[in-house]
């Protein structure tokens, strides 16, 4: 019964390549001297190979199979999430090129190794069809991430962020594990689909308890209210490339995993969890957007913004249907959100990298007059901010909201959609405030703080993100339709 064949290896080749790459990075680190760029190139090479292997093995994914005796999903949804995770990691590597030292990361080899470990964990977490596998993925990802947050060894803020994340993160993981254990006790299995089947026969209070515990774990990882408290502090303290990685890759993988567990595993308990998710979504949108209004630190502001966007995506969880449903909308939104968020963090990185030891390096006043000092950075940031607010020319953000809100209205959550749009009107204020700082204010002393000369890598990430932010919205069909196709065999 339990044989692992070549096919399993092929289907999970991205994970294996990234995981192996992580070990390889550690191994060759010894021979690479002090320089940063050979490691970055090696990292990019490994990522490219992983992407290629993902592309090559598309056909079996399209057929929608399972790998490792039904422990891992290999369908289009998994494929897309893996692609997005790899894409996010690639952007992280690119924006980090040649700034790691300035960000206080002294051992780049370890950094890349941990980054890959987290990526491999994220892929396993999002594609697992079995709860223990899912948990192992979660832990691999989280453990590596705790270390990454503290990668700036001499920075107290970095260490603080690592410790905070570790303490709260391990709590949430433990709570989730408790839920999984309870579920195993009720159903006698840890495979998601048999769980659904077993629960359809024995829907008890205990099952609801385990669902609640598992939900807490997911809400924590997604970073939604009320388990969001870690996010601003951790985002602020961690080195900026790590923050960007957390904001996009971790969120992508957690949303993917949660979607699978809730829609497939607890599909029958929908009446129970939809109420909870409804409140979580509403609270998340309202609270995060209101608190973001008061932030002066751009990293904290983007942290709250990422919480808010998690809230919008929560709306998608509620609207499951056969067509035009929340799943495809969430996938589309994740892509757009990744592009916009990584783009925004790259600009923050360019402004702060030379002063990363200073706790006020990402204060909004440092962005005053940026349009004069570096028009390219300012224009890109303006596009990202408009995109996050959903105002053209940030068309991708507008279309993302279009899909999510229309799915919510279709599922008759009109009230929720109204809360959502009002919150995004609120969010326009703090996104536009960044444009105010960059374009409408005089630099007012900010010019003293030298900007990072954007490297080719950073420049190309920014260009790519700007193009994506505009054109993904003007030509959204290809992406949305493949997302919709992914949800057909979900």
């Amino acid at each position: 019964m339990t044989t692992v064949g070549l096919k399993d290896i092929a289907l999970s080749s991205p994970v294996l390549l990234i995981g192996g790459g992580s070990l390889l990075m550690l191994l060759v680190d010894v021979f690479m001297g002090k320089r940063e760029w050979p490691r970055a190139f090696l990292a990019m090479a490994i990522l490219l190979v992983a992407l290629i292997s993902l592309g090559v093995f598309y056909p079996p994914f399209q057929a929608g199979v399972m790998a490792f005796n039904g422990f891992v999903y290999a369908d289009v949804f998994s494929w897309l999430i893996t692609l997005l995770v790899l894409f996010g990691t690639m952007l992280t590597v690119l924006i980090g090129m040649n700034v790691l030292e300035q960000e206080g990361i002294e051992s780049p080899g370890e950094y890349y190794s941990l980054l890959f470990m987290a990526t491999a964990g994220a892929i396993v977490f999002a594609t697992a069809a079995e709860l223990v596998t899912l948990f192992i993925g979660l832990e691999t990802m989280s453990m590596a991430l705790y270390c990454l947050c503290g990668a700036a060894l001499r920075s107290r803020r970095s260490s603080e962020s690592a410790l905070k994340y570790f303490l709260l993160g391990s709590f949430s993981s433990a709570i989730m594990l408790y839920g999984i254990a309870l579920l195993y006790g009720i159903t006698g299995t840890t495979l998601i689909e048999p769980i659904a089947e077993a629960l359809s026969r024995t829907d008890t209070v205990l099952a609801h308890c385990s669902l609640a515990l598992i939900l807490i774990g997911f809400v924590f990882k997604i970073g939604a209210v009320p388990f969001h408290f870690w996010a601003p502090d951790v985002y602020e303290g961690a080195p900026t490339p790590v923050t960007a990685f957390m904001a996009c890759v971790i969120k992508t993988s957690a949303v993917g995993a949660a979607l699978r567990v809730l829609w497939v595993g607890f599909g029958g308990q929908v009446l129970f969890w939809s109420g909870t998710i409804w409140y979580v979504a509403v609270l998340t949108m309202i609270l995060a957007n209101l608190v973001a209004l008061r932030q002066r630190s751009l990293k904290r502001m983007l942290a709250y913004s990422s919480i808010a966007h998690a809230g919008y995506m929560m709306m998608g969880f509620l609207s499951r249907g056969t067509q035009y449903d929340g799943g495809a909308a969430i996938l589309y939104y994740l892509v757009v959100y990744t592009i916009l968020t990584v783009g925004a963090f790259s600009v923050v990185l360019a402004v702060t990298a030379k002063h990363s030891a200073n706790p006020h390096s990402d204060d909004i006043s440092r962005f005053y007059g940026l349009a004069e000092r570096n028009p390219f950075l300012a224009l890109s940031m303006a596009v990202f901010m408009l995109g996050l607010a959903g105002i053209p020319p940030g068309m991708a953000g507008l279309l993302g909201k279009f899909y999510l809100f229309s799915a919510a209205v279709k599922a008759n959550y009109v009230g929720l959609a109204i809360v959502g749009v009002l919150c995004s009107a609120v969010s326009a204020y703090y996104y536009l405030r960044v444009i105010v700082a960059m374009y409408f204010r005089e630099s007012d002393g900010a010019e003293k703080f030298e900007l990072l000369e954007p490297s080719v890598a950073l420049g190309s990430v920014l260009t790519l993100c700007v193009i994506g932010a505009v054109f993904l919205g003007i030509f959204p069909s290809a992406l949305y339709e493949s997302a919709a196709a992914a949800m057909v065999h979900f």
Partner: protein
Amino acid sequence: MNFDTFPFLSSLVFLPLVGALVLYLLPFFRPDHDEHGTLSRGFALFVSLVVFAISLLMLTHFDAADSGYQFSERADWIPYFGISYFVGLDGISVWLVLLTTFLMPLVVIASASVHKKIRGYLASMLVLETAMIGTLVALDVFLFYVFWELMLAPMYFIIGIWGGKRRIYATLKFVLYTVVGSLLMLVAIFYVVWRFYEQQGHLTFLLDELQMYTNLTRKEELWMFAAFALAFGIKVPLFPFHTWLPDAHVEAPTGGSVVLAGVLLKMGLYGYIRFAYPLFPRAADAFAPYIATLAVIGIVYGALVAWAQSDIKKLVAYSSVSHLGYCVLGFVAFNAVATSGAMYQMLNHGISTGALFLLVGVLYDRKHTRLMADYGGLAAKVPLFAFLFLVFTLSSIALPLTNGFIGEFLILTGSFKTFPVLTVIGTTGVVLGAVYMLTLYMKTMYGELDEGKNGDLTDVNGRELATFLPLLVMVFWMGIYPQPFLSRMEPTLNAYFSAVAERRAALNVYENDVAPSQDIVLEREHQQARPVRESAAQPNLNRAVEG
């Protein structure tokens, strides 16, 4: 050139955008900086004149007798959701498009008073032109929404970068007010579209289809209309949502004010007549008395506040609140006379208020103050300026033979049939308008000239005259011979009224036969996956009402 197949409307919409991109990339072509912006200004003027020429060419080929969409173009945009790029021109939009393309070259000429970052200013203006024309010609609801939102960003930059002292406050207020309204409208759009989907089995965002085949209960209609009317009411702006307007106007640079007053505010009115009324006719009827009341309050209140202003620009801004009140009144009265009057008045207001803002700009450029108290007795010093000021003042207070008279006369005649009492109250606005405008004229142009302050004031120069002459011609042309304008609106309006009447009847039939008492569902409610196609006869089966 083949007139039947050439994409006139698309070139009209996207040419300014292309121009803006070229302008933005100009430093790459001309590395030796365009120091004084002469090249940028020349190029922007060229683009806007080409656009104007195209629109004139279209006007000559516009079939006045045809009530349907002309020059229409259609392509799939997001086929999965039934969203298409569908644009067309009819009697309702044609003059507004012309007004936009007509004002834009003038704004570019008037940009001489902008000194910093001229390239960005002109590029923003051109993007704004694309957005405005796009809004006016879009016949797909989502396309309309995208262009509608696209108007925000350029105007946000125009006020924020080139505005006065309180520009940041003003521009944020402008954007936030508009965004709240338009996002709620987006939810309403979704709701209508999904109702259509439930009833017809496929998705579309085309206005015509939604208008013909979406059945809504009265209560649904009221909610949807409220969302649309809020979005449009904020844009117009209708009292009490007007507070962003004086701030935005006072802080905006001259060109920004001209575009804001001339075209942007009309978008709210246009949206009302194009989308809100035909989609939700019964709700519009139900709301009409309330909206008319707000409009009349706006007329009188705007006029009174304008009277109390000491800042000339603020006075003109409040006069806009008052004047647009008439347009709203004309539209909600909903008869042929009042509606065509309101449409005409939209054009008049664009011309006379645009000209007044340009005149204020001329004064401000010279003396850097807009306070009435700083001026006086200018008529002797700058006779040509005084003459222009007089003409546009008279046009603004609707003296016979000027354009304003025709519009106000038609509106008041038409709306008297529907809202006699409100119209009578609203008529006091005409008197008040004369009071505050003539007071303004008297205080600035007559009286003692302060030699020390204004002795060095120079008269209107050739460039400025070039902006005023076309407006001057239009004031008299539209005041003396309005027929060419009205005759092109008429067939469309007639068809429009009968289409709305049909829809009203169809909705009533639907209400009586099919859906006796269904409530709108505003509360959360989970639904299991339902089949893709639902029968049109039982559209409400899945809409359980939750208390």
